[in-house]
């Protein structure tokens, strides 16, 4: 994966199944224009996993919703390009979007208890997802397919389970059912929005493993949206770190985890407890809260929370940093500090904590 800000057509992998160029998503509200996503560019190949990382309100979920075309066009302004299998879906008609949704692009939601309909049986909900894209399939075929999928995602006694309601499933089983529903039409792209957040830690690992297995089998592209860097380090090939609707650092998972360059990425890493690092080192939370997306701080939107803001005179407060190559190929960072300064600060302040190694 390659990324940069606009004009970024050249930086996007032209072979990739999903190509997003300079995507901007804005919601006009009574209080002002909410710039939920403000220019992101990325691409994902089939068989690859992109992790999108950031706090709540960083624009990661809005990005994923726009890839499915789920925003109400009357209340959302979307510009840029989202190309799925060669088709640009920005501005596409609702009817065409419906043919893509669930078939070419499927979504796994965060909380499977609220994301599954409480009144319908699990099997019926999966069968419905199959039947909508296979209108000629009989009810029986769709049901058989649903049971097969439940079996495939590791649910024991799938025949019996298909006849149960979501509330009769455990959390992990529900998420498996959700995955079965997402994969029922063999989608080329799967977006998983915090798929393990609502689950026990032990179950989390099983679900991530299942997703990896299924990816190998179906060769799908996966976007893993999460705030959990542990999840990212386990499953992602590439990582996009977002802050206040903008990309702040992109690169391979190794580059982001081992040689991060943006102070926000450092902050995320330093706030993760590590089992392997120095146990006596305190966790360092990122001070403050994410900014309002209506009223972004001028200059670098991270400046009010950045320990190093102001290193380059006034630039942090007046100029929005562009995403620029950060040394290694594929590694980009949007920071005003020079490469050398970042290297030095990382070595002095961050690396010794042994974060998330």
């Amino acid at each position, binding site marked *: 994966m390659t990324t940069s800000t606009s004009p970024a057509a050249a930086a996007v992998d032209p072979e990739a199944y999903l190509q997003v160029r300079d995507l901007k998503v804005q919601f006009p509200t009574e209080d002002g224009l909410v710039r939920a996503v403000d220019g992101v560019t990325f691409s994902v190949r089939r068989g690859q996993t992109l992790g999108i990382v950031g706090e709540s309100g960083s624009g990661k979920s809005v990005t994923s919703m726009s890839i*499915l075309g*789920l925003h109400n066009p009357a209340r959302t302004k979307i510009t840029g390009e989202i190309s799925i299998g060669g088709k640009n879906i920005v501005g596409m008609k*609702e009817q065409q979007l*419906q*043919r*893509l*949704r*669930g*078939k070419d692009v*499927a*979504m796994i*939601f965060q*909380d499977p208890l*609220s*994301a*599954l*309909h*409480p*009144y319908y049986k699990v099997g019926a909900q999966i069968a*419905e*997802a199959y039947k*909508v*894209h296979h209108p000629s399939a009989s009810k029986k075929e769709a049901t058989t397919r649903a049971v097969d999928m439940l079996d495939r995602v590791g649910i024991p006694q799938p025949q019996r389970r298909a006849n149960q*309601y979501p*509330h009769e499933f455990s959390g992990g089983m529900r998420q498996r059912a959700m995955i079965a*529903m997402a994969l029922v039409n063999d989608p080329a792209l799967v977006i998983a929005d915090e798929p393990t957040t609502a689950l026990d830690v032990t179950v989390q690992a099983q679900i991530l493993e299942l997703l990896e297995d299924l990816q190998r089998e179906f060769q799908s592209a996966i976007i893993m949206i999460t705030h959990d860097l542990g999840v990212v380090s386990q499953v992602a090939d590439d990582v996009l770190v977002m802050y206040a609707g903008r990309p702040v650092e992109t690169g391979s998972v190794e580059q982001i985890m081992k040689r991060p360059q943006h102070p926000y990425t450092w902050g995320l890493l330093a706030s993760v407890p590590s089992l392997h690092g120095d146990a006596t080192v305190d966790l360092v939370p990122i001070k403050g809260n994410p900014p309002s997306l209506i009223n972004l701080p001028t200059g670098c939107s991270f400046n009010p929370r950045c320990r190093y803001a102001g290193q380059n005179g006034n630039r942090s407060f007046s100029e929005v940093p562009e995403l620029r190559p950060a040394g290694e190929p594929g590694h980009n960072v949007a920071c005003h500090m020079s490469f050398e300064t970042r290297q030095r600060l990382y070595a002095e302040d961050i690396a010794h904590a042994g974060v998330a190694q």
Partner: protein
Amino acid sequence: MLRFLIKRLLLASTTLVAISIVTFLLFFAVPSSPAWVMCGRNCSPERIAQVEQSLGLDQPITKQYTDFVKGIFVGRTINDAGTIRECDAPCLGYSFRSKEPVTDTIERSLPVTVSIVAGAMVVFLTVGIGLGMLAALKKGTVFDRVAIGASVGFASTQTYTLGGVLLLLLVYSTGLLPNPHYTPITQDPLDWAGGMLLPWITLGLINSALYARLSRAQMIETLQEDFVRTARAKGLSARVVNRRHALRAAITPIITIAGVDLGAYLGGVVITESVFSLNGIGREAAQAVQDLNLPLVMATVLLAAFFIVAMNIIVDMLYAVIDPRVRLG
């Protein structure tokens, strides 16, 4: 399910017994007597005592109550000023005023109330829920604003205002609708409906307003649920998402409220009946209270309580059928 039903029926019977006792006690706590009402202001104490004796009011309250209960289950004989009347079970006594068996009064007035409520219910469930759901789907549009604005207007009118205005406009001035009256449906269905039209419209519109706002709020909330987003993410059309996924979930609590409302209305819609001069249960009950007509008061109170209790049980069972998460027990 069976255990639930038995438990609820026991509870319901207890409730009804408690209500009957309380009503009985309240009746005798009133510092007046049916004899005074019947006999007039200048009645001698001897005459009063005579009337009270003829009504059986000179007996101890406990005896009167047990007689009343006995009458319901096995029937009883009533000594009315020397005339011995046989009153078969279920006997609710004789009306102090008209001297007819209370069961006859109920038999005559209940169909009137049922007719009013049934038609009005059809109006407000279709118009109210329909408008509310549409307004929710078209939230923020002109349609939404007009529908909700109108419903606020109707909700703030009262039956006696709206009923009176409609009566004046549609009946007295223009003659578009027949004067409200009751004809049994078995006798002439068309005339039955014609006579009920105005009460249906009045009670229907006022309740439509409430149901429209309720269903709009419910639908808007449901449309924001995660499972609706999931349905859209599957690639289902907006129609299927709205009907099969959103509506089904949004309508459940409304059914509950409609059921409880039905129970309450069947016990009598006093104001609607009075505005349109229809002799339903509600009007009989109001009159009975004014007359201190104990047997009729008891009958109407118990009937109203019975409908409410019964509808509550039915609604709870219905809920379990609609929502698989609800387990009765």
